[in-house]
C-alpha cells in the first residue's frame, strides 16, 4: 500500500521529534499537575479570551469582506480579494509594529484587534469559497421571496459555518502568539498570555519535563478548536456545492455598493497596504526625508532645547505637564518652528502666526555654529540621508536601501527560496498520499489530527526535538546542512498540506478512482494520474501555501544550525540594530518573496488557486 512509506516519512520527520520530547515527561510525574495552579489557569483563561476576541474581530471583518469580494459588484473585487490575503502572510508582529506607529491605542483590546486583522483572511478565504458555491437557483428562490435582503440573509446562513471554521483557525493563531501581546501591551497595564509562560519555562533548565508539560494546555486548547472544524468538514458543512451545480452571478448592490466598496478598501488599506506602505516609507528614510528632522533638532537645541522651551509646569515639577501625544507634538512643533524662524529657516507646516514667540526666550540661533552649518549644508548638498529633500531623495534612499538589503541578504534570500521550494515540493506528494488516506481510510480523522501535531506544539519544542533526533554521528553532515531545515519544515507544515489536499479529495468522486482501478491502474497510477490531475488547482495552491509558510518560519528554525541563513532570520536579526531603512527594505524583500509564487500564478494563469482546507 502506498500510504505506508508516506506515513513512515511523516513519523520520522513529524512525530519522532515530538516523541523524543514527550518521553521526558516521565522524568517528573508531577510536571502536569504543577500546571494546574491558579496563576497558570488565569493565564490560560485570558489567552482563551484573547483568542475569542481575535476570532470575533476576524469574523466581523472577514465574513463581509470575503462575501463582498467574491460575490458582489464591488469595483476591483479581484484585486481587493488578492490584497486581502496579504495580512496572513505578513508576520503579525510586523503588523503590530506598523500599527502602533500610527495609532496610540494599546492594551488587550488592541491585541485582539491586531490579531483579528492579521488573521481575517482565514475567515474571508473560507467565506469566499462557500459563497461561490451557493447554487444560483437557491439564491433566486430567495430573491423571488424577499429581494436582496432575503438573498443576503440566506447567503449569510449558508456561509456562516465556513466563516466560523475560519474563525477557529484565527483563534488558534491568536492563542499561540506571545510576542504580539507583549509588544502591544507595553504601554498601559501589562497583558500576559500563556504562550509567554511556555517561553520563559524553556529558559530554566533542570526542569525539562516541566517545559515540555507547559506545552500541553496550549496543544489541548488548539486541538479543541480544531475538532469542530474537522467535524464541520466531515459533514461537508464548509461546502454547499452539490451535483448539478450552477455557479451564482455577482450580486448587484445598488446604492449600497459605495458603502461596501469603502468597507473593503478600508480593510485592505489597514491590514495590507498600511504595513507594507509604512515599511516602504521607512525604507526610503521617510521620517527623516519628510520632516528634515536634523535641521529642526539643531535649531531646537540652539534655542535651548527642552529646558528653555518646555511649557510652564502645571502642578508638579516636570512630569505634571500634559504629555498626551498631541499636546507633546504640538509643543515640540511650536518650539522648533520658533527655533527655525530665528535661525532664518523656513518653519515647518504651521503658519508663523501660531508660533508663540515667548517659547524661544529671546535666544538667537547661532547660524555659524558648526552643527547648524552642517545641518544646513546637509539639506543643500548631496548628503541628504539625514534631512529633508522630499520625493526625489526618498526615491534615492529607497533604491539605496533596497540595493543594500539585497546585497547583504542575497545569499540568505537564495537559501530561503531554495529551502521553501524543496519543502513545498516534498510536502506535496506526501500530502497527496496522506490526504487521500485521511479521506478514504477508516482512521482518517486520527491521521489528520496527528499530522497537525507538529504545527500546534510550541515551535521551540519541535525544534529541539529535531536537534535531539538528528544530531548524531551518522547524520552529522546532514545536521549541519540545509537539508535539516527542509526536514524540519516538512515535519512542521505537512499537516497543513494534508488538511488542504484532503479537503479537495473529499470533493473528488470515488467512482472516478474505481473506474481507473477497473481499467487496471495501480494505487500510484490512480493517485498521481487520476486524482492529482483532478484536483490540480488545489495542489498548486498547497504548494504555494507551504512555500509561503516556509519562508515565514522563524521560531523553530532559529534553533537549528543551518537555518540561520534564511532571509526571515536576517530580518529579525537586523530589527534590533539595523538602521530602520535597511530593516524595512529587507522585510519588504522577504514579504515579496513570500508573495512571489502566488503573484506569478495570478499573472500568468487564469485559474484560481485553491488553498483552503
Amino acid at each position, binding site marked *: 500500500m502506498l500510504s505506508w512509506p508516506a506515513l513512515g516519512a511523516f513519523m520520522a520527520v513529524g512525530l519522532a521529534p515530538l516523541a523524543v520530547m514527550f518521553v521526558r515527561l516521565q522524568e517528573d510525574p508531577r510536571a502536569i499537575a504543577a500546571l494546574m495552579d491558579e496563576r497558570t489557569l488565569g493565564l490560560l483563561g485570558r489567552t482563551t479570551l484573547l483568542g475569542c476576541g481575535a476570532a470575533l474581530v476576524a469574523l466581523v471583518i472577514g465574513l463581509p469582506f470575503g462575501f463582498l469580494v467574491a460575490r458582489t459588484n464591488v469595483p476591483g473585487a479581484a484585486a481587493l480579494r488578492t490584497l486581502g490575503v496579504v495580512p496572513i502572510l505578513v508576520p503579525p508582529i510586523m503588523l503590530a509594529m506598523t500599527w502602533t506607529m500610527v495609532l496610540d491605542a494599546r492594551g488587550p483590546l488592541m491585541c485582539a484587534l491586531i490579531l483579528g486583522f492579521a488573521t481575517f483572511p482565514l475567515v474571508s478565504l473560507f467565506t469566499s469559497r462557500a459563497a461561490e458555491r451557493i447554487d444560483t437557483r437557491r439564491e433566486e428562490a430567495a430573491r423571488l421571496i424577499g429581494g436582496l435582503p432575503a438573498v443576503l440573509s440566506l447567503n449569510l446562513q449558508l456561509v456562516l459555518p465556513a466563516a466560523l471554521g475560519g474563525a477557529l483557525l484565527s483563534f488558534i493563531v491568536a492563542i499561540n502568539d506571545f510576542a504580539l501581546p507583549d509588544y502591544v501591551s507595553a504601554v498601559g497595564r501589562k497583558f500576559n498570555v500563556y504562550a509567554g509562560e511556555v517561553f520563559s519555562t524553556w529558559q530554566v*533548565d533542570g526542569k525539562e519535563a516541566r517545559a515540555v508539560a507547559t506545552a500541553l494546555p496550549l496543544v489541548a486548547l488548539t486541538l479543541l478548536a480544531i475538532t469542530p472544524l474537522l467535524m464541520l468538514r466531515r459533514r461537508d458543512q464548509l461546502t454547499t456545492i452539490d451535483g448539478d451545480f450552477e455557479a451564482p452571478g455577482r450580486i448587484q448592490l445598488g446604492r449600497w455598493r459605495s458603502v461596501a466598496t469603502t468597507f473593503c478598501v478600508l480593510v485592505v488599506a489597514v491590514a495590507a497596504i498600511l504595513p507594507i506602505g509604512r515599511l516602504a516609507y521607512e525604507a526610503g528614510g521617510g521620517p527623516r526625508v519628510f520632516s528634515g528632522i536634523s535641521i529642526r*533638532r539643531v535649531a531646537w537645541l540652539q534655542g535651548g532645547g527642552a529646558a528653555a522651551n518646555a511649557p510652564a509646569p502645571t502642578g508638579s*515639577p516636570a512630569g505634571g505637564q500634559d504629555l498626551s501625544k498631541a499636546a507633546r507634538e504640538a509643543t515640540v512643533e511650536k518650539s522648533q518652528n520658533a527655533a527655525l524662524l530665528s535661525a532664518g529657516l523656513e518653519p515647518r507646516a504651521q503658519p508663523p502666526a501660531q508660533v508663540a514667540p515667548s517659547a524661544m526666550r529671546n535666544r538667537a540661533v547661532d547660524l555659524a555654529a558648526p552643527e547648524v552649518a552642517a545641518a544646513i549644508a546637509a539639506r543643500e548638498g548631496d548628503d541628504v540621508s539625514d534631512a529633508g529633500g522630499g520625493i526625489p531623495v526618498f526615491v534615492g534612499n529607497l533604491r539605496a536601501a533596497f540595493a543594500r538589503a539585497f546585497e547583504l541578504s542575497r545569499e540568505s534570500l537564495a537559501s530561503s527560496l531554495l529551502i521553501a521550494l524543496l519543502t513545498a515540493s516534498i510536502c506535496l506528494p506526501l500530502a497527496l498520499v496522506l490526504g487521500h488516506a485521511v479521506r478514504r481510510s477508516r482512521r482518517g480523522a486520527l491521521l489528520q489530527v496527528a499530522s497537525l501535531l507538529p504545527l500546534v506544539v510550541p515551535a521551540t519544542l519541535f525544534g529541539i526535538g529535531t536537534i535531539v533526533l538528528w544530531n548524531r554521528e551518522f547524520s552529522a553532515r546532514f545536521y*549541519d546542512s540545509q537539508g535539516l531545515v527542509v526536514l524540519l519544515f516538512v515535519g512542521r507544515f505537512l499537516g497543513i498540506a494534508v488538511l488542504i489536499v484532503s479537503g479537495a479529495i473529499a470533493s473528488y468522486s470515488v467512482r472516478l478512482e474505481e473506474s481507473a482501478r477497473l481499467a487496471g491502474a495501480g494505487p500510484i497510477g490512480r493517485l*498521481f494520474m487520476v486524482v492529482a490531475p483532478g484536483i*490540480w488547482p488545489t495542489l498548486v495552491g498547497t504548494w504555494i501555501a507551504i512555500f509561503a509558510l516556509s519562508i515565514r518560519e522563524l521560531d523553530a528554525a532559529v534553533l537549528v*544550525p543551518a537555518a540561520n541563513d534564511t532571509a526571515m532570520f536576517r530580518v529579525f*536579526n537586523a530589527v534590533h540594530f539595523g538602521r530602520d531603512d535597511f530593516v524595512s527594505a529587507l522585510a519588504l524583500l522577504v514579504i515579496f518573496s513570500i508573495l512571489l509564487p502566488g503573484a506569478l500564478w495570478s499573472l500568468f494563469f487564469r485559474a484560481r488557486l485553491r488553498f483552503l482546507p
Partner: protein
Amino acid sequence: MSRQPLSPSPSRLIPLLLTCTALAGCGREPDLVVRVSLDQIFSEELIREFEAQTGLDVKAQYDIEQTKTVGHVRAIIEEARTRPRTDVFWNNEIAQTIRLAELGLLQPYESPAAADVPATFKDPSALWVGFGARARVLIVNTDLVAAGQEPSGTLDLFDERWRGKCGIARPLTGTTLTHATALYQTMGEEWTAGFMNELVEANGKGQVQILESNGQAMKLVENGELSWAFTDTDDFNVARMDGSPVQRVYPDQVVAKGCLQRDGEPLGTLLIPNSIMLLADAPHPENAKRFIDWVLSKELEERLANSRSAQIPVRRDVPRPAHVGKIGDFRAMGVDYVTLGRTIGERTEALKEIFLR
C-alpha cells in the same frame, strides 16, 4: 481544466527531491563551529574577517533578539547530550554562560589575550572570559525632560512626576532578567520581591510601563511616548546615532531620593559583559583557541566600542570614542557573576510568579 499538472510520475519525483535536499547542504566539514549571540549585524563581519585572516572555514550560528540567547543555550545543552558540535560560544551576556559552566559543558582555557582582563570579568578556573560590556542605563528623551530634571535611579520608576511616562522591560528574559537577578543578590531577597511586586502594582495603576524588550524601550523613548526607560547602552547608542533627542543616565550613582543604596552607598550601574568560552568536547579545540584569542584581543574590544553597539571595554587602556563610558568613571554595581548565573534559574521562577499573572 485544460492544463495538466506538472508531476508526471511520483516514483521518479520523490527520490529526485530527496537527493536535492541531501545535496542542498552536504558541504565539507567546517574547521570551527561557533555560536554567537552578539547580533549578527556586527558579528558576521568579524567572523568573515577571521576566516580571511586564518583561512579557516568557520560555521557560525547567530541568534535573534526574540529568543534572547535561550535558544543557543538550549541547543548547546541538547547537542552536548547527543553529539558535541559547537567549539566556541560567544555570548553577549554572562548568566547563561555560568549555567553552561555549572552543567560541566565548558573546558578551561587560559587565553594569553585575556591576561590583562580584570579578574572580576574572568572565571577563577578559566572556564570563561568577559569582555566588551553593556551597562543597564536610563535612556531619557531630552525633548521631554529638561536638563537637570532627569531621573537618577531605579526608584524614580515610582515617582509621581513620571506617572505613565517611564518604563522597564518585563524581567523574564534578556538583560532585564539578569538585572532583576542582580537586584536579588545585591538588595536581598525580601526587598527585591517587594520591589518587583510593587512594580506590577504600579503598572496596574498606570505609573510604570512594562515593556516587551530593551529595543522597544529605546523606541518608545526615542519617539516621545515615554520620557525615560531602562535599556542597555547598545540600544541607547542606536537611538543616539539615529539623531534622536536622547541622553544616557547611569542610574543609582549618588545617594539621593530616586537611587538605590546599599550600606549607605549608592548601588551603582549593572554591567553585563560579553563572554566567550571553549566548550567541553569541542571537536576543533585548537582552532577554537585561536578564535578565542582573536576575539579577546584589545583591537577587537576597541572595534566593539566603536561599533553601533558601543560596548564598554573592560580593560581601561582600550581606546574608545567619547560616547562610550569608562568603567570607573561611573560606579558599577558590585555583582558576583558566578552566583548570578547560578541563581538566575530559580529567580526566573519567582519572577514568573510575579510578572506572569
